[in-house]
């Protein structure tokens, strides 16, 4: 029975592993950190899987565990903050010497996302994944109104970075 559950889990995980990669992409800024977080989320998903009854969609369940793991996992934050600052500075310098091409805009936006707090990263992630506000609110444990207010603030912030 255990083997059956395990097999089912691995097959489903294999099909949906992109979700985890995307969480890692938002929360980490180098490949090592990405792999570490990916592994931890995989372990947490597997631990929780026997209790997954399918009341929610598999993706919803994966978002929740993925984000929770990313937000609560202990990471050496200092070093990654330094690299992020560095990257952002680099992007800014490039941006001033280049035209506002779409490529540059994207670079800037991703750099800006990396600078957000852990909570805001979760919100923007769910937004990018086209999750509706009711579900975002449920995932984060805040009210729908507050989720909207906060999201608008993040959106405005990202837009101001592009159009100062």
């Amino acid at each position, binding site marked *: 029975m255990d083997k059956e559950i395990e097999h089912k889990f691995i097959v489903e995980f294999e099909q949906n592993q992109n979700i985890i990669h995307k969480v890692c992409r938002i929360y980490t800024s180098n490949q090592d950190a990405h792999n570490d977080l990916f592994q931890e989320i995989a*372990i947490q998903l597997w631990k929780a899987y026997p209790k997954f009854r399918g009341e929610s969609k598999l993706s919803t369940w994966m978002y929740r*565990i993925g984000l*929770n793991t990313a937000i609560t996992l202990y990471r050496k934050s200092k070093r990654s903050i330094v690299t992020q600052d560095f990257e952002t500075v680099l992007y800014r310098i490039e941006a001033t010497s280049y035209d506002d091409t779409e490529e540059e*805009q994207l670079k800037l936006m991703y750099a800006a996302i990396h600078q957000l707090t852990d909570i805001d990263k979760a919100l923007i992630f769910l937004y990018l994944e086209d999750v509706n506000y009711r579900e975002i609110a449920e995932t984060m*444990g805040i009210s729908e109104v507050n989720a909207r207010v906060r999201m608008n603030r993040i959106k405005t912030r990202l837009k101001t970075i592009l159009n100062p």
Partner: protein
Amino acid sequence: MDELEFLKKDWKAREVSFPKLSYNEIYKMIHKKSSSIVKWIFIICIAEFLFWGLINLFIPESTFAIYEKFNLNTFLFIAQGLHYMVVFFFIYLFYKNYKTISVVDNTGLLMKNILKTRKTVNYYVYYNIILYVLISIILNIVMFSHPDILIEIMIPKNAVLDSDKFLGIMIVVQIIVLLAMCAIIWAYYRIIYGILLKRLNRNFKELESLEV
């Protein structure tokens, strides 16, 4: 096109570039050891329970012989009995809180439960420090109110020593030891909180502030 819609489109387009793990790689991965914060908190908490539980065993027997001369043994026996009851209560609370931590809960609730579990153990440590200080004070008051017995025990016969000076040194040494212990414990908690829980605390406060 709206910048954010543009970002969303790119976000989805980049999915193709992610590496794909095979069935076997996933199998290996999920059987590796977790390094989650909850696991670390659990290990640290158990270590703390053991530390404060076992510290009693390292008090040398001779100390109790001294207390007996002051008729303090009954008091210490009762204090110890009560102490163990409190310890079991703390362990029960810790276990109960630990069990409520679930990664499937919403983010706010999850962080709240982790911090609550950790707080239980903090209260346990505060309790131990307060108990330690309190017992030290009581023992000292009793002992110093009978300086004759104290001098008889502590100063070997025939030794020439000013008894007032001796009592003065005793008090100073006791205070220094007490302060040093408190400093060590304080430093330890700065490290635990500074390293392990700072981010979690910050994230929790941020999420809480959204709801105000």
